[in-house]
């Protein structure tokens, strides 16, 4: 800044003592923008650009081809089974943890969070160790002609494992914050446990529950590592969408791979949009950890 003109005349307000130097501000913003563009924006653009490289027709053909449709169906079936089961678990676990006092509670919460710190591949591996051909129950299952690994049940189990904590970890802090006064009032007025849950608890947690279901579903439909271990990659039978993408990509069918990938990328973008909407409009009704 030169001494010729008084700074106060040039700047509408003098810079506050805690404001960064304008140059630092510009440089930091550029560095942040560069990092975001390089690691987030560019991959996202690449997916859609590659999918549409040969025109919309080729992309649509790749999505509507029988193996792709079978993969889409498999992904939907796995999510439709795994997500409701984890929702049911999330609701019961957070009821037990937030409405009652018992010893070992924080240890129980740690155990519920456990699947988040396990590699997806290990999440699939554990079920192969139990139900695989040479797993603990493998021979018994074979004798009774029950297929778990390389079949739908294995895919559902692996999906359940990786999405296990989502709903519970959203609801436990939320319901603990809300306390138990309203529920106690309802029961003292003669409501049954189920009535209390449906009429009092559920309306209080509906946005938090939706938030948890949203994240749970996104992960369930997109899971790759865990499902890859248990699926067996049988084309047209046990391939989910992410696995189908892998098969196509390794087959050098790049346009087809990116076309199916763009469907999952759209799902991710919709998930982010709804999630952001919930964070803006219902910040008080979802768990405090997400507020920023």
């Amino acid at each position, binding site marked *: 800044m030169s001494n010729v003109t008084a700074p106060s005349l040039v700047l509408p307000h003098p810079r506050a003592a805690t404001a960064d130097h304008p140059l630092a501000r510009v440089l930091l913003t550029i560095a942040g923008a560069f990092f975001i563009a390089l690691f987030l924006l*560019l991959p996202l653009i690449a997916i859609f650009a590659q999918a549409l490289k040969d025109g919309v027709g080729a992309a649509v053909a790749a999505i509507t081809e029988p193996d792709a449709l079978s993969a889409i169906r498999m992904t939907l079936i796995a999510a439709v089974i795994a997500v409701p089961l984890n929702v049911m678990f999330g609701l019961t676990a957070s009821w037990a943890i937030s409405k009652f006092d018992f010893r070992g509670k924080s240890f129980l919460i740690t155990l519920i969070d456990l699947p988040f710190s396990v590699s997806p591949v290990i999440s699939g591996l554990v079920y192969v160790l139990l139900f695989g051909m040479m797993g603990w129950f493998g021979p018994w299952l074979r004798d009774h002609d029950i297929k778990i690994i390389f079949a739908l049940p294995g895919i559902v189990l692996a999906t359940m494992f990786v999405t296990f904590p989502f709903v519970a970890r959203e609801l436990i802090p939320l319901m603990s914050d809300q306390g*138990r006064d309203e529920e106690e009032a309802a029961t003292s007025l003669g409501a049954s*446990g189920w009535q209390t849950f449906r009429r009092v608890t559920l309306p209080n947690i509906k946005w938090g529950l939706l938030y948890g279901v949203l994240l749970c579903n996104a992960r369930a439909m997109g899971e790759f590592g865990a499902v*890859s271990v248990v699926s067996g990659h049988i084309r047209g039978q046990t391939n989910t969408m992410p696995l189908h993408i892998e098969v196509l990509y390794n087959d050098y069918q790049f346009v087809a791979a990116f076309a199916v990938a763009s469907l999952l990328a759209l799902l991710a973008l919709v998930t*982010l949009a709804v999630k952001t909407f919930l964070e803006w409009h219902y910040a008080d009704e979802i768990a405090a950890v997400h507020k920023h």
Partner: protein
Amino acid sequence: MSFAGALALPSTAWRTRSALPGFGLSLGFTLFYLSAVVLIPLAALIIRPWELGWSGFVEEVTAPRVLAALKLSFGAAAVGAVLNTIFGLIVAWVLVRYSFPLKRLVDALVDLPFALPTAVAGIALSSLYAPNGWLGRPLLALGIKAAYTPLGVVIALTFIGLPFVVRTLQPVLSDLSRDHEEAAATLGASRLQAFRRVVFPALLPALITGAALAFARAVGEYGSVIFIAGNLPLRSEIAPLLIIIKLEEFDYAGAAAVGVVMLGVSFLILLLLNGLQAFVARQR
């Protein structure tokens, strides 16, 4: 169960009584489901490798190919965590302290690595950094080969860990009162000194937590890595892929052994980082 009935319940030592019904049922189902889906399968993982015996286990996990894969998974995850710590701090700072157009959109986009399926991220990164890709070609002109090398693994693991540091720092940074910074400025500290002596120490615990989360996620990552890694044994093969290869060879015990070492080492590192975080928080 009626209200009176619930009140009449004897208070056992391990829990205080409550007026609300459903404790036994909800806790019972929770424990059953937790055991069936998570605990019993994980027990199978921990028990399985020991059919090799101690020496067999050690031999399995010290084989050159296994050691190279473990070194790559942990090393690349650490490099990715460091990169995310530096750039995550910058991104969080810019998002909290400055205002600029499309700020909310950028803020929402930070969660993309959480929402985007890993296989999708994997093929996108791979095609970007491949020798004929948008970024691979200019990098190759500079003499840098990114895809199908350990550098590719670092790129994928940086992508996957990106949201953790930003999301851990953001709330701490916006709750941080400016009073101390103001005081520092009044006492004659430059902006850089105020940041180094006042702001940075306050952020350090959250920075360590964010880095630990990014590291933990990256160590086990599979989907976003395998497409860009090239998967050359001893060079660019990650530990999770080695588990899958062993499984395909029906070497269940070997696969479980690698899994147990991965879990054990990440647990130890996280314990250390937690300790460091607690130490730093106490120092303040």
